[in-house]
């Protein structure tokens, strides 16, 4: 008996591979690998396409078999679909000359490719990049030192022109200030009118007088600004494209001139850094396909913050009630089911609810109570960052509730009993012991909610996001935080630039860059939350619990 059983242990029995469970382990491993691969590939594609965009690529000059010339930036080589060799996609820029930024050139038509040192690229305020060659300066007021090399002369003239924009900017700010003052004045009069004050009442007369003064000042400043701008626009330079067609470009229209073919690596790195800075800090240009993303970044971050402020306390309090105070029963069960289902409703439905309830309902009431004098122009009765974040808050509340409940119920019973046995009330136990211990789990809910909110675009599109917002929701104007304002958002930016822009090909790089930034922001925010969570964990859950 004894020996037979020990023999049984010694001879390894061959079981079927299903009984051994190996295939199951392979399946689990494969599933993990698959998801990881998809994520990594997605990130790599975005980064490959996004990171290279800002680099100053060389300008190639193609001499064609028929003797013509084409210049531009090589985008990609590819097989010609019907056979017949390769072709190259060239970004030729100069939209004002060719009306298309991109051109396919069959390899067979190319006689020679060179990289001339004097090829220049201009980033411009309008019409996209210009690729070509400098011909001559045509200056009016600005002088450059004699017998400098033409490119150096152009650069010094351009710098001088940029410097001269500063007083114009000051004037333009003054114009904006005056127009705000006039708007305020108009609203004050509208309010008085709304209150039934007569047109010849002293208050009213004062306002009207003030208004005409403002108007005079406004006209004068605006005229001054226009005059100066026009004068500055006289300072131009003449450029020629590869084929020799010339173009006169005002110096102030040039955002960034460079000669990529002569740039050293450090110079290129410097250029890259300055482009990156522009991306993070500047306003967009050219219907969002160029320039910076600052307003969109700002809008995204502010939206997530507002959403968090609104949704987290609500979710946590609701979860505390459900978990700690509500009596077990069919009612609570129904609420649980409802909460779990809420998390699965398509976000556009939340958007529509937000539009109907917050924007038209609550916003309409707020307008009629507090901003009646501005009607029919809506103040809160139209989409804005407040309503958008409330809508997102509503969308994420179920996530927060579920996670918080889970976290609360995972606090060991013994700890609660210990607290009660020391004479603590329910609230004291909750505040001093249960909540701190549940905080890492609650944080997990926050992270999930934040990630979900950052990725939503659909509900925003009908509750206040815009393609181009004239001003940020926070600025130096009283009352500094303008929750009624419309805002820009990286997610919507991707959609808008990528699919709604008139020049989709030119916008492509921006789509990748924007995607990268959005992912980066989500990553930064959740890393921050994860860091906080790990600190809470250390503080409250260390050791053997």
């Amino acid at each position, binding site marked *: 008996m004894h020996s037979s059983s020990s023999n049984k242990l010694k001879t390894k029995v061959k079981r079927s591979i299903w009984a051994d469970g190996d295939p199951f382990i392979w399946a689990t491993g494969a599933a993990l690998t698959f998801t990881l691969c998809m994520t990594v590939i997605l990130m790599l594609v975005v980064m490959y396409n996004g990171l290279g965009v800002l680099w100053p690529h060389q300008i190639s000059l193609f001499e064609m078999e028929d003797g013509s010339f084409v210049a531009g930036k090589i985008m990609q080589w590819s097989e010609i679909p019907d056979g017949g060799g390769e072709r190259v996609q060239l970004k030729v820029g100069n939209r004002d000359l060719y009306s298309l930024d991109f051109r396919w050139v069959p390899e067979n038509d190319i006689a020679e490719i060179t990289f001339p040192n004097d090829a220049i690229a201009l980033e411009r305020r309008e019409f996209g990049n210009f690729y070509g060659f400098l011909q001559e300066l045509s200056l009016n007021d600005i002088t450059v030192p004699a017998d400098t090399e033409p490119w150096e002369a152009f650069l010094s003239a351009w710098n001088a022109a940029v410097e001269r924009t500063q007083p114009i900017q000051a004037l333009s700010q003054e114009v904006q200030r005056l127009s705000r003052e006039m708007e305020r004045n108009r609203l004050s009069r509208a309010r008085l009118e709304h209150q039934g004050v007569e047109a010849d009442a002293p208050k009213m007369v004062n306002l009207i007088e003030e208004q005409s003064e403002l108007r005079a000042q406004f006209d004068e400043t605006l005229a001054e600004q226009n005059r100066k701008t026009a004068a500055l626009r006289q300072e131009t330079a003449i450029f020629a494209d590869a084929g020799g067609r010339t173009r006169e470009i005002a110096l102030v229209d040039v955002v960034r001139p460079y000669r990529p073919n002569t740039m050293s690596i450090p110079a290129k790195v410097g250029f890259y850094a300055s482009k990156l800075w522009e991306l993070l800090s500047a306003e967009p240009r050219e219907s969002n396909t160029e320039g910076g993303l600052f307003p969109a970044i700002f809008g995204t971050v502010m939206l997530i913050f507002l959403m968090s402020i609104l949704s987290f306390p609500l979710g946590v309090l609701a979860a505390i009630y459900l978990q700690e105070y509500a009596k*077990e029963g069919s009612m609570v069960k129904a609420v649980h089911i409802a909460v779990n289902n809420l998390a699965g409703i398509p976000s556009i439905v939340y958007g529509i609810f937000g539009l109907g309830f917050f924007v038209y309902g609550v916003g309409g009431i707020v307008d009629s109570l507090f901003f009646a004098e501005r009607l029919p122009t809506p103040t809160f009765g139209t989409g804005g960052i407040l309503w958008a974040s409330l809508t997102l808050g509503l969308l994420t509340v179920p996530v927060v509730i579920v996670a918080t409940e889970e976290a609360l119920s995972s606090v*060991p019973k*013994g*700890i*609660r*009993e*210990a*607290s*009660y*046995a*020391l*004479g*603590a*009330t329910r609230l*004291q136990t909750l505040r*001093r*012991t249960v909540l*701190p*211990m549940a905080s890492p789990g609650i944080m997990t809910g926050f992270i999930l909610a934040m990630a979900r909110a950052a990725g939503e675009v659909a509900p925003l599109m009908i509750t206040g996001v815009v393609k181009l917002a004239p001003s940020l929701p926070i600025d130096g104007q009283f009352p500094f935080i303008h929750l009624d304002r419309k805002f820009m958002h990286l997610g919507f930016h991707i959609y808008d630039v990528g699919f709604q822009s008139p020049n989709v090909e030119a916008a492509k790089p921006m789509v990748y860059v924007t995607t990268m930034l959005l992912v980066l922001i989500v990553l930064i925010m959740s890393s921050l939350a994860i860091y906080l969570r790990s600190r809470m964990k250390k*503080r*409250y*859950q*260390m*050791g*053997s*619990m």
Partner: protein
Amino acid sequence: MTQLVTSVIEDPIVRTRNLNLYYSGAQALFNISMDFPRNQVTALIGPSGCGKSTLLRCLNRMNDLIIGVTVDGSILLEDIELDDPDLDVVELRRQVGMVFQKSNPFPNTIFENVVYGLRIAGMNNREELRVTCERSLQQAGLWDEVKDRLHESALGLSGGQQQRLCIARAIAINPQVVLMDEPCSALDPRSTARIEDLIAELREQYTIVIVTHNMQQAARVSDYTGFLYEGVLIEFGLTKKIFTKPNEKQTEDYITGRFG
């Protein structure tokens, strides 16, 4: 049903009279009438599931936390009826402290664990807290081991130290009665011996009720012993008497290990 009223005790601190307890209808305690002597150690013994913890938890109304518990009969602490909906449970639990089977320190520093009861009672004077903390840890025999790490996490202590910390925490608020539900069941013999010594010392100041499955322990630490069987108090008396010459056959069988 056997009904047994203990008349041997003079001036008891806690008394139960005809105490019945039901868990959502299922009766767990039957007609318990028992006196707990002042400044003595009373042990509750009996087979698993006989209602020892349930009886113990009646004395500080911890059963309130369980949904569906109903109690009838009476429980008196110094002539105050405990089974009274108007009773201030918070105050009751400050006077009747409890130590659990599984040590359950809060995930906080040692110091904060000891002063928890004081803090929730609104005491914030640092000096007073410090003094009480030291006194309680001294009484719990833990002071020398932790005096240099009061502000480190309590979860870094060993199981035995954690249990003594829980005792320190319970006596920091100066209760009259300390209830202990199998305080040594998860500990090694050395830590058990320490806690038994501790119980002997605490006896001077507090009334102690201890639940234990360890007959030697009951014999060593207690002055009085009650034997429960299926929710009924079979026998109660001086420990010496119960362990040498019990009146009931069931008690004798249980103590000598013939059943249970």
